[in-house]
């Protein structure tokens, strides 16, 4: 495209995490004045690449070149010095400080006296930045008074104020309305003409093709393609993102007959932004709930379980209306394996036995008298059945490997009399062997008559394991795929924006 060396070039970057190669010899270049789109399905390596770029991760292998000269990015400070600024999806804003104070946090202009701030100059420069973004809000407005979209704009202003030459954006339009999106795009074009290089991660096909000067596709930590927008259609791009032959390692006997209806959700909405959810789960089937990260999958799980407040709609369990806190849900036979096993699933300092026994305490000990020996016996049986590798049921669960911890989080529901299992990201951060065991366990549950609603970001898992799947987008059910229709490509087509 041009002969000058790229503003920033990465060559053969690799990053290894225990059990997974997050980046595998990825090369990537971005030119001044270019919008470089980065696409790929969940877990393809986009966020790892972004973190390497901003110095949050250190690459294991590979080289960086800035305007053709070799440089190092070992820390956030290195990245800043090269003019790289990242806008993360989680905001780094302070709620009770003004827009201007947030933009210049940590880089305040010194005032007349030591330690003071030159407020006049700060607000003046903040105003300029906001004007540049077409944002007409007083710079003294406190950030907590702003909507999510405006907060996003403040983040962008913050990055711009650091004179970023390379701006990395992670799905910047996820929370924006159409009008705000247009404004953001206008600003990006403005920055482009000023010579700023932009790395833009997106799931929305429309903006990938509208805004991108170049598109790089990542899959399984590898770069699979780097092309110009005219060289592919959206469908071809989706195909590139998925593009692997289906792996049959977790194959199971799919549900043949239609079982009894366990869960029926009608028009459910909750405080966490899920709207108008309709779904059913029957005895003997594994129902997938797929979609991209942030589509509201976990929020549906939490609403059904009563962990988030339900604001409308109905939940029918065995045809009876159910609503209430998690303790009611557990009593009614619902089990939730939450997304974050450390924050929500396990009492890490307590023993394997204690964790395994917790949900089923009142079933195991109806008199409320707890017998430690009996608990150890029950836990021991579960440990054997699930093949949890631990020297003793009394070992603190924090000392177990990720896969074994996950078995504990699922296993603790086996003694609670649950008929409906909602399993959120069953295989996150665990190795291949443990994955197969966990799927065998889930298969065992449904063959004994339970119903499973399974959430996974790994599309291949949904395709291999589920009898059918719902696909979510923006807090709503975007569609339903039967066993025959279920493929990664179809999930992606439903889950990404095609507007």
């Amino acid at each position, binding site marked *: 495209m041009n002969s000058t060396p790229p503003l920033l070039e990465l060559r053969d970057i690799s990053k290894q995490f225990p059990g997974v190669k997050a980046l595998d010899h990825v090369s990537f270049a971005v030119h001044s004045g270019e919008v470089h789109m980065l696409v790929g399905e969940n877990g393809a390596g986009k966020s790892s690449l972004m973190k390497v770029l901003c110095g949050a991760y250190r690459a294991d292998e590979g080289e960086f070149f800035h305007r053709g000269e070799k440089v190092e990015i070992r820390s956030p400070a290195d990245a800043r010095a090269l003019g790289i600024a990242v806008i993360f999806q989680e905001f780094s804003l302070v709620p009770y400080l003004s827009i201007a104070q947030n933009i210049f946090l940590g880089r305040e202009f010194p005032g007349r006296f030591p330690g003071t701030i030159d407020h006049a100059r700060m607000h003046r420069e903040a105003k300029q930045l906001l004007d540049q973004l077409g944002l007409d809000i007083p710079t003294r407005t406190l950030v907590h008074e702003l909507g999510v979209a405006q907060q996003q704009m403040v983040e962008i202003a913050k990055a711009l104020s650091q004179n970023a030459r390379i701006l990395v954006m992670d799905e910047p339009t996820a929370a924006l309305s159409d009008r705000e999106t247009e404004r953001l795009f206008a600003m990006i074009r403005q920055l482009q003409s000023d010579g700023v290089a932009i790395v833009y991660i997106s799931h929305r096909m429309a903006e990938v093709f509208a805004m991108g000067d170049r598109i790089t596709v990542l899959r399984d930590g590898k770069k699979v393609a780097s092309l110009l927008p005219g060289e592919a259609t959206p469908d071809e791009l989706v195909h590139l993102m998925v593009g692997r032959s289906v792996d049959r390692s977790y194959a199971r006997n799919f549900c043949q007959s239609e079982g009894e209806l366990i869960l029926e959700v009608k028009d459910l909405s909750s405080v966490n932004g899920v709207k108008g959810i309709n779904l059913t789960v029957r005895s003997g089937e594994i129902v997938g709930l797929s979609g991209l990260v942030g589509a509201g999958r976990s929020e549906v799980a939490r609403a059904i*379980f009563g*962990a988030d407040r339900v604001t409308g709609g109905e939940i029918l369990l065995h045809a009876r209306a159910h609503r209430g*806190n*998690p*303790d009611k*849900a*557990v*009593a009614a036979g619902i089990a*939730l394996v*939450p997304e974050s096993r*450390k*924050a*929500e*699933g*396990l*009492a*890490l*300092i*307590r*023993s394997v036995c*204690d964790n395994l*026994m*917790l*949900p089923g*305490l*009142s079933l195991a*000990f109806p008199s*409320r*008298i*707890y*017998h*430690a020996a009996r608990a*150890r016996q029950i836990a*021991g049986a579960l440990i*054997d059945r699930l093949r949890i590798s631990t*020297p*003793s*049921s*009394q*070992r*603190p669960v*924090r000392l177990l490997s990720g896969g074994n911890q996950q078995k504990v989080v699922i296993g*603790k529901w086996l003694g*609670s009399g649950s008929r409906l299992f909602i399993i959120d990201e069953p295989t996150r951060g665990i190795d291949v062997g443990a994955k197969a065991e966990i799927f065998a366990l889930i298969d065992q549950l449904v063959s004994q008559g339970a119903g499973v609603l399974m959430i996974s970001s790994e599309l291949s898992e949904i395709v291999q394991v589920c009898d059918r799947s719902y696909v979510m987008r923006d807090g709503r059910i975007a569609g339903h795929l039967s066993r025959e229709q279920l493929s990664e490509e179809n999930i992606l087509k439903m889950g990404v924006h095609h507007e």
Partner: protein
Amino acid sequence: MNDAIASGRLMARLVDLKTIGYRLAAALAICLVLAAASDVFLTTNNLLNVLRQASLLFLLASGLTLVILTAGLDLSVGANIGMSACIAASVIKLTGSAMLGAATGVGVGLAIGLLNGVLVALMRMPPFIATYGMLWVVHGVTYWFMAGTTIYGFPAAFRALGSGYFLGLPIPVYLMFVFLALGSFFAQRTTYGQEIYAIGANREAARLSGVPIAKRLILVYAVSGAMAGLASLVFLARMNSAEGDIGEAFTLPAIAAALIGGTSLFGGVGTVSGTLVGALILTLVLNGMNLLTIDASWQPLVTGVIVLLAVFFDALTRKGGDGRQ
């Protein structure tokens, strides 16, 4: 596999013994030092006195231990003692019935605890602030109720609760063992106890496992209040008089006893039996200072330093990597 489980079981018991054992050894060491430093220490009278004081502290701290196990705190226990004692005292004076007075004392303590529980569990107020506000409300009401007066002179049957002996041991010591057994049973041998530990270890995980958080929290604050009410009776019977400020000096030592006994402020770790050892250690230190004729003015300073040290070690072991952030 079975071998592994069996050996693990044995290990667990040994470790448990180790945590209590360290503290018992420390208590013993203090005893040795005091025995060497003072002739009076090993007299029967003094030892019984230590036991009696420790039992009062334990009664108060055992309820508090349950609260701290849920990663909460009850700062109102001292003020609770004051109010329970004063109201119990005036009921005894009015009706002449020690039983009725005792029931009132425990009832008042329970009521204050319930209020704390409602503020913390249902109103979602931070436990520190809720019980701190409660401290001052209760404190003021007690002063208003007493209006500077002292109520004294109770029936001998009631006084026996604090100063009586049975088979050569002070009656409060029996109470201590009864509540050690009850408290340990509740914490270790009921499903409620298991749930309370789980709440302290990871509240969200406990909630998502179906533990009814609000009910359990109200329960522990109520128990803590009722134990303060009971402790107030023992104290009242021992002092044979009640004034408005009767409980003020108890809050810090009660917290100290639980912390020294190995209960973690971060929740989920600790035992009632540990708190007993903590109460013993603290009482021994204070008794020793007394025997060595160190001014009583040193007591708040020493207790404060002990609390700081206990919190320091707690923070240190937590950093030592039990996996929580």
